[in-house]
Structures are given as structure tokens and as C-alpha cells.
């Protein structure tokens, strides 16, 4: 073993406190250090994931107190897979935005990189922790960095978007605390595994109230339908790479939390159908809203919300196939949506309105970026032979296995809607005449590298899905085996 899970939190926090000091020595360090930290964490994550896939989960105790007394971190196949994915994306976001704000003042750059690193750390913490109050703390870290990043471009619109996000986020925190309070007042413990083993003792009425509070609170972060009013604005107003970080990292962490509560902690019988219901509503509303958007980033944001709805539907099947499909979808969505955000922000780089009509004819000026955007669009819609095809196929087979034909039909119908609005943009990029007013912006070298890497991964998964399915199956098994999780954590002495 090369390290332990606590380093995923301790090292970035240490670096965050150090960066202001390092910046006084040499200003470039502010940009370099987060990258070094993320690179180290990626190596650590891959090593630990390999270890875990062979030897079983690692449960790390903090401050020397075994669960349920102290806080613990759990690195198993499921959380390890998500952590690796998040840190990988975080590193790509860092590479993409390395030269970001290069020519402006030093202080905004310092704050940007600090907030970005904390956004990633908070999300990783949400996934790793085995304690419900600790998860609350990490959700706070994530959301406060997210508010700051949303309002990074100081203007009327971004301030409004950030304010909306702050209001919803604060309500989410309140609900989360209320839910935690009910659980503690009943069971006298905050440890997830301990709660899971005692949840049957709880008063059913209080159990339902606390589950609903958890879902409401996490649903705000996970962009579930009635709670996602902040999302399109935040995506549209935040800097381009931050949109990718939101879609790829923050939302994934929130979905993880909902799944952890539904699958492991609570034992409510109707919760799976509830997930299908809210997922389906989110999917349909978001995709139909996406088709009416005029701004590119808002369209991508609604598409991202819709995909999260589909992930929840797949988790709601409650079967192994369903969980596998959901995980595959999460992986694909993280990679493809990041590519779309990265390339999309270059397609509309110099326009003030960021309208879809302004991407007309960009393929002549930005051939590689346009090609990659088209690749992302085809992949996310689910056209073979790209990555998205396999995950959509997995969702449909899982639905068929659970005899949910209506869900299958609805998902296919929504996919057609998705196809329409993505192909509309691709059509504009390739076959329309460029508007004279819009000046194309060549991507930076870093940006190009990141987009090419993501494109290559999409093709790799598309042509050779077995590269990831083995790991996804192991992650699925580790999520489904609730008894094993409880035993791993509580057997520590």
C-alpha cells in the first residue's frame, strides 16, 4: 500500500492553507501546486483502487477512535471508482484552465485555483466519508466553493445566479441538519454503517421524514427536478471549465450521497419507485426544456440535469443491471459532458450572449474543436460506436429485465428529443454560414490536449467497453452488498 484514504482530504487542505504563502514567494506556484496535488492524488487513487479491487475495501479510522465513536472513511470499489473519476476530471479541469486569467491580476487567479481545489476535495470527501455529519461538512465545503466560482465573473447575471445558488444551498444545508438531528435523536449515532444496522429500530414516521429531508437537501445539489432552479443559471454564468467541474464532479457526489442513503442506510420499501418517479420527471422536464434554450451553456446544463434524472431512474430499478447501467452512465456523462463544456466554451468564446446561433459555421475556423464537440454530441445522445451508446443500452436492458416497458419507451422518446437539440447545434457548426460579428478563438495548447484526451477516452470506451465494465461490475457488487459494508466498518476493533 502506498497511502491511505485520509490523504485525499489532508493533502489538499494542507496545500490550500499553504498556497497563499507560496504565492508570496513566486506567483506561478499558485497555479502549479494544485496541479501537483491533483496529480499525486490521481496516482494515489489509482493505486488504492487497484488494491481495493483485489484485496477488498479499506476502512480508515480517524483520531484513533473506531466506528461508531469516531469518524471513518470508506474506500471500496464503489467509492474508489467515483473518487478516481472525480480526481481525474479535476486534473483535466486544472490543465484546461492552467493559463486561465493569465494576464490579469494575481489575486483572482489565487482565489480561482483555491476554490477549484476545494470544490474537488469537498466532493471527494462526500464520497469517501462514512459519517453523516462529516458528509454535511464536506457538502458545505463543496457548495461554498461552488458559490464563489459561480460568481467569479463579477457582473449582474453571475451575482444573480450565485445568489440563487446560495439561497437554495442554504435551504439544503438546513434540511440536511434537520434530517441528521432526527437520526441522532433516535439512534444516538452518526456512523453510516451503525445507522444502517439499527435503522429498523426507528419509528417509521420519523424515518420517512428524515429520508425525505435527506433527498430534498441532496436533490438540490444533485439537480433533481423541482429543486434545480439554480443549475441552468449557475452553469451559464460560471467560467467554462467550472461548468465541466459542476457536471462531472459536484453533481456526481450529490447523486452518490442520495444513492448511499437509499441503498445502504435506509430500508424503506417504496424508496426505489420514488427514485424512478423523480428521475423520470426530471428527465422529461429537463430534456424538453433543453430544446427551447437559446444559449449553448444553458442547453448543456439542462441536458446535464436530464442525464442525472436518467441515472436516478437506473438506480431506482434496484437490480444489479440497473446499478451497473447507472454507474456506466455516470462515468460516460462525466467524460462526455466535460468535453462538451470544454469545446462549447471555445465555440462561443468571444460572443457576449453565448447564443447557439453564434456557433454558425465555426467548423471552418476551429476544425478540431468542432469535431470534438460533434463527437461529444453524438456520444451523449447514444449513437454507436461511441461511449454513450453502451450506457444507454445498459439502461434499456436493465429496464427490460425489470419489466418496465413504459420506462423504456419514455427513455427512448426522450432520447429522440435529445438527438434533435444536439444535432441542431452540430448542424449549425458545420452547415451554416458564419456570422461576421463573431470572432473565432483558437483553443490554447492545454485546452486542446484535454479535449483530445477526453475524445480518445470516448472512442476507447465506445470501441472497447470491456476496458471499464469489469471495474463497474465490482463497484456495483460493492454498492449492493449492504451487509458486507456494515460488517467491514463495524468489525474494526
Amino acid at each position, binding site marked *: 500500500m502506498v497511502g491511505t484514504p485520509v490523504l485525499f482530504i*489532508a493533502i489538499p487542505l*494542507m496545500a490550500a492553507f499553504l498556497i497563499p*504563502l507560496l504565492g508570496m514567494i513566486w506567483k506561478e506556484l499558485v497555479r502549479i501546486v494544485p496541479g501537483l496535488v491533483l496529480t499525486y492524488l490521481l496516482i494515489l487513487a489509482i493505486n488504492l483502487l487497484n488494491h481495493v479491487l483485489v484485496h477488498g475495501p479499506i476502512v480508515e479510522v480517524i*483520531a484513533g477512535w473506531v466506528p461508531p465513536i*469516531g469518524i471513518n472513511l470508506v474506500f471500496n470499489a464503489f467509492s474508489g471508482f467515483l473518487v478516481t473519476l472525480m480526481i481525474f476530471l479535476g486534473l483535466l479541469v486544472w490543465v484546461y484552465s492552467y493559463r486561465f486569467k493569465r494576464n490579469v491580476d494575481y489575486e483572482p487567479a489565487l482565489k480561482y485555483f*483555491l476554490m477549484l481545489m476545494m470544490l474537488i476535495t469537498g466532493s471527494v470527501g462526500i464520497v469517501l466519508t462514512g459519517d453523516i455529519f462529516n458528509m454535511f461538512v464536506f457538502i458545505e465545503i463543496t457548495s461554498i*466553493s461552488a458559490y464563489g466560482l459561480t460568481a467569479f465573473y463579477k457582473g449582474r447575471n453571475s451575482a444573480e445566479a450565485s445568489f440563487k445558488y446560495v439561497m437554495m444551498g442554504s435551504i439544503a444545508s438546513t434540511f440536511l441538519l434537520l434530517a441528521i438531528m432526527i437520526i441522532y435523536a433516535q*439512534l444516538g*449515532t452518526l456512523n453510516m454503517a451503525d445507522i444502517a444496522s439499527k435503522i429498523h429500530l426507528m419509528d417509521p414516521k420519523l424515518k420517512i421524514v428524515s429520508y425525505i429531508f435527506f433527498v430534498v437537501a441532496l436533490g438540490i445539489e444533485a439537480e433533481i427536478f423541482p429543486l434545480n432552479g439554480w443549475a441552468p443559471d449557475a452553469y451559464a454564468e460560471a467560467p467554462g471549465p467550472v461548468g465541466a467541474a459542476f457536471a462531472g464532479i459536484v453533481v456526481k457526489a450529490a447523486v452518490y450521497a442520495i444513492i448511499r442513503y437509499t441503498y445502504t442506510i435506509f430500508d424503506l420499501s417504496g424508496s426505489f419507485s420514488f427514485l424512478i418517479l423523480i428521475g423520470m420527471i426530471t428527465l422529461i422536464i429537463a430534456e424538453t426544456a433543453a430544446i427551447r434554450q437559446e444559449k449553448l451553456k444553458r442547453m448543456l446544463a439542462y441536458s446535464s440535469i436530464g442525464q442525472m434524472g436518467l441515472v436516478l431512474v437506473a438506480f431506482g430499478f434496484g437490480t444489479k443491471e440497473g446499478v451497473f447501467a447507472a454507474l456506466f452512465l455516470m462515468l460516460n456523462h462525466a467524460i462526455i459532458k466535460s468535453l462538451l463544456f470544454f469545446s462549447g466554451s471555445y465555440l462561443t468564446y468571444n460572443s457576449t450572449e453565448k447564443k447557439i446561433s453564434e456557433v454558425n459555421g465555426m467548423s471552418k475556423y476551429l476544425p478540431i474543436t468542432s469535431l470534438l464537440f460533434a463527437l461529444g454530441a453524438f456520444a451523449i445522445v447514444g449513437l454507436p460506436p461511441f461511449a454513450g451508446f453502451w450506457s444507454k443500452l445498459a439502461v434499456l436492458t436493465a429496464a427490460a429485465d425489470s419489466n418496465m416497458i413504459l420506462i423504456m419507451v419514455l427513455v427512448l422518446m426522450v432520447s429522440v428529443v435529445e438527438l434533435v437539440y444536439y444535432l441542431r447545434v452540430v448542424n449549425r457548426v458545420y452547415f451554416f454560414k458564419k456570422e461576421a460579428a463573431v470572432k473565432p478563438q483558437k483553443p490554447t495548447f492545454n485546452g486542446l490536449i484535454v479535449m483530445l484526451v477526453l475524445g480518445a477516452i470516448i472512442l476507447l470506451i465506445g470501441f472497447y467497453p470491456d476496458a471499464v465494465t469489469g471495474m463497474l461490475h465490482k463497484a456495483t457488487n460493492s454498492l449492493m452488498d449492504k451487509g458486507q459494508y456494515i460488517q467491514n466498518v463495524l468489525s474494526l476493533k
Partner: protein
Amino acid sequence: MKKVLVILLLATMGYYIAGSYFDIGFGQPHFVQGVKPVKDIYLAKTVKPLTVSNAVTSIVVNFRGFDTLGEVTVLFLAVTVLGSLLYKKRHAVGERSVLFSASSIVTSGSKLLFPAIILLGAYVFIHGHLSPGGGFQGGVIIASGFLLMLLAYENYSVSHTALSVVESLAGITFAGVGLLGFMHGGTFLQNFLPVGVLNNLFSGGVIPIIYIAVGFKVGAELTGVIYTVLHEKGQSNG
């Protein structure tokens, strides 16, 4: 009509939610029969092996020290975000958004009070493991001392660099003590110093060190917040 419906819906929901909270019965033994709440373990272990007289401190800094590290980071981030939001609007050093002159009673009085406030703040966080209070409370008291000085003197200024150095060093101390515990004891934030005798100033192992670091950090951060907000350029004169 729509508003009435919304209010009715909220009232119904509020009634049932409040009802479920009343059912818990705070203040009485409210835990489900047969569970062993962690609070009893915390209380028992605070005296031995931790050797700390203040149970709140032992929970905040040791049993749930990881949460506290997170909360300290939340504060640090909040200050960072505030600085980033108000960055463009900041004045040159020395200028204020609120300009008024304090009377001589306030100026001379605050000169007298300032050292006492700082001393009280330091006392509160140094004795965090012995008496009520701790790093967060002590830090807030110190920041209130700086607020008094900033209000009393128009040209009183705090070095931004110094604040950020103190903040960073305190944060590094917290995370560094955690990592040292990791190296010596095998788990993050574990105590690796001798625990001493109960009720002595030097007792509780790493707990006082962490709380002193938290005190410095909170003090520096809140002073920074006050300073940033005081020097925000208003809409009217900007």
C-alpha cells in the same frame, strides 16, 4: 389565490413536520430502546484516556476533530470567496466605505480596552480544554477587538499580508498536527503527546495545540472579513 394555496400547503407540511419533531421529545431520554448512544462513550472517554476537563472540547477537537478541520476550511473558504467577490470593489488602503469620526471617549476608551479584549480572547482559546470556550469563541473575541479599533480610528489598518500569513500558518498547524498523528499513531489527528494531569494547563495532548491554532485562524479570518467589508466601495461613490 395561488399564494393562499401555497401558504396552506406550507402550513400543512409545517404542521406535520413540527409534529414529528415534538414526538422526539428533546430533554427526555429520547433514544430508541436498546441502542447505545455515542454520547455516553464520549463522556466516559473524555476524562480517561483523553484527560480533558471540557467534554465539548474533547468532542469538537478529538472525537470529531475531522469535522472541525472541515469547518475551519469552510471559514477559510468563506473568507476567500468574500475576498474574490469584493476584489474589484476594494479601495486603496486607508480609505473606507463608512467614514465617520468617533468621539474622543470612544477612541481613548478603545485604546484601553483593546489589550484587555485580546488577552481575554487568548485566555479563552488557551484554556479551551479546561473551561467553557475554545478556539472559535476566542478567535471571535479577538476579531471583535480589531473591529472596535477599526471603528474607533479612521486610519487604523491591519496588514492584509500579516493576516493571511497567520491564517495560513494556523491552518498548516492544524493539518500538520493531524499528519504528525498519522505518522506516530497510525491514524489522522491521533494524539501523540503525553496527556498530562487532568485540569492542568498542559494536559490533553494535542488538543490545546489544535485549539490555539483554531483560535489564531478564526481571529485572523474574521478580522479579515471585517476589514474587507469595511473597505468595500459602495455603489453610490464608486
